[in-house]
């Protein structure tokens, strides 16, 4: 009994070690030659194509909801003029990076896990290995680089659309003063806030690529293995995104 428990704890530690090592390798192999800028660019395009529409859609509605709820709340205190500041701070610091990352994880992250899982089960990964090409360097590192570049970009798009959506509803429909909306943002939104948002986006990019690639790369070599890897990639990415959101937020406040 105790032996079994010990063995499973040991297995858990080994698995965790492999998980962390995978992250280390994928970043380390991005830094040493041969460099694969083309593969990274291709992945950026795939992530962008997969997720851009969703980001725009979710960004717009998030901003609109904030415009609506923010306006009704602020009106009770008679400070509708602060609407722009509230919407911008909430989106740039918090909702933009988190929601964008969740969307990209659901869209591009799951696709990535499925693709790598299928490559693993059809021996394409083994084929790379036999050709003396490091599969992590060839498959995972470009995706990691693509995530690090594209997450902040997509988050920025989300932020801009969200702030615009808040303005459309808050000022256009509900009648908050339009001038105050943008003046408030200009006065209150500091570069520190923007930096926090971008740091978060960067962390989430690493997390989503790390988890999705790890799950796909280590998928069991069968159809159910691939589908399980896909699901696990999205679930674990989402959990880690929210945990990291708290940690980064607390550290950088």
């Amino acid at each position, binding site marked *: 009994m105790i032996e079994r428990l010990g063995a499973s704890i040991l297995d858990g530690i080994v698995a965790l070690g492999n998980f962390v090592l995978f992250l280390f390798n994928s970043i380390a192999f991005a830094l040493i030659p041969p460099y694969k800028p083309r593969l990274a660019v291709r992945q950026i395009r795939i992530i962008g194509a997969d997720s851009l529409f969703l980001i725009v859609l979710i960004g717009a509605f998030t901003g609109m909801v904030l415009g609506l709820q923010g306006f009704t709340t602020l009106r009770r205190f008679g400070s509708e003029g602060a609407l722009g500041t509230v919407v911008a701070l909430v989106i740039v610091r918090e909702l933009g990076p988190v929601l964008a990352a969740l969307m990209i994880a659901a869209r591009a992250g799951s696709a990535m896990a499925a*693709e790598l899982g*299928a*490559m693993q089960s*059809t*021996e*394409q990964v*083994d*084929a790379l*290995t*036999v*050709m*003396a*090409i*490091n599969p992590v360097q060839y498959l995972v590192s470009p995706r990691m680089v693509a995530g690090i570049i594209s997450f902040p970009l997509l988050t920025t798009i989300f932020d801009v659309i969200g702030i615009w959506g808040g303005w459309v509803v808050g000022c256009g429909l509900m009648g908050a003063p339009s001038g105050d909306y943008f003046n408030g943002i200009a006065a209150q939104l500091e570069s520190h806030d923007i930096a926090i948002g971008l740091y978060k986006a960067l962390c989430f990019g690493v997390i989503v690529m790390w988890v999705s690639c790890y799950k796909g790369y280590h998928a069991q070599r069968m159809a159910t293995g691939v589908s399980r890897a896909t699901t696990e990639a999205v679930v674990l990415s989402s959990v880690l995104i929210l945990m990291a959101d708290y940690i980064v937020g607390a550290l950088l406040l």
Partner: protein
Amino acid sequence: MTPEGNGKPNTNAVEVRGLKRSFGRQVVLNGVDLEVPAGKIVTIVGPSGCGKTVLLKHLNLLLRPDAGSIIIDGIDVTRMRSAALNSVREKFGMLFQAGALFDSMTVFENVAFPLVEKTSLSREQIRARVLETLTAVGLQGMDAKYPSEMSGGMQKRAALARALVHRPKILMLDEPTTGLDPSRTGAIHDLIRQTQRNFGLSAVMVSHDVPAVFRISDRVAFMHRGRMQLTGTVEEVMASNDDEFKRFLAGRASGDDLENNQVSS
């Protein structure tokens, strides 16, 4: 394990001694000995599921043995760390049993892949070499297709083209002609022989095309119950009185072959 093992005129491209490997309780390799002399084609035959693919995957170092040793080109690679293995792997051209073509790439890109990644040939040279190889395997005009748009036999030939294109020192072919029609099988056999002769390659090949494949083989190894039951030149093997081999050739598998090679009798 001396690094200069490479230089001396070792006569074996691949040398395997006492190779053992189990998956869980199932013993798949139970002391395999095999020699692939430089510049020769060695064909491994044996009943389905006897461990031929597993053996090949040990030779190209995808799997690691439980015991025994593997010597490639005079270098003992058995316990080499995987990072150091790449210099050995650059000598390989491997055809996987299921092809293992990159399905996100066209046939042209697949076949060009080893050249693009591992040689300094110019674009034009690569293009010429790829088209030439595709023609040799009978896939002219198919270069823009994706693997999923081709038949199983065509995928096999594309994968063979990818294994041959960079003229590797050691060819490892897992059933290069399974799933091809008889005339195509003969043509592919000729191509393998020709490529091997022209470039002085060593080849280890797994095949079910007995006895057709013996025509291009220098040596034959009959694998049975996790070891090499019978090895020798084609003449020696064909003349042997080994019961199992005779039964295998005649297409009459013994009952326990069908029972997944459980040791019995």
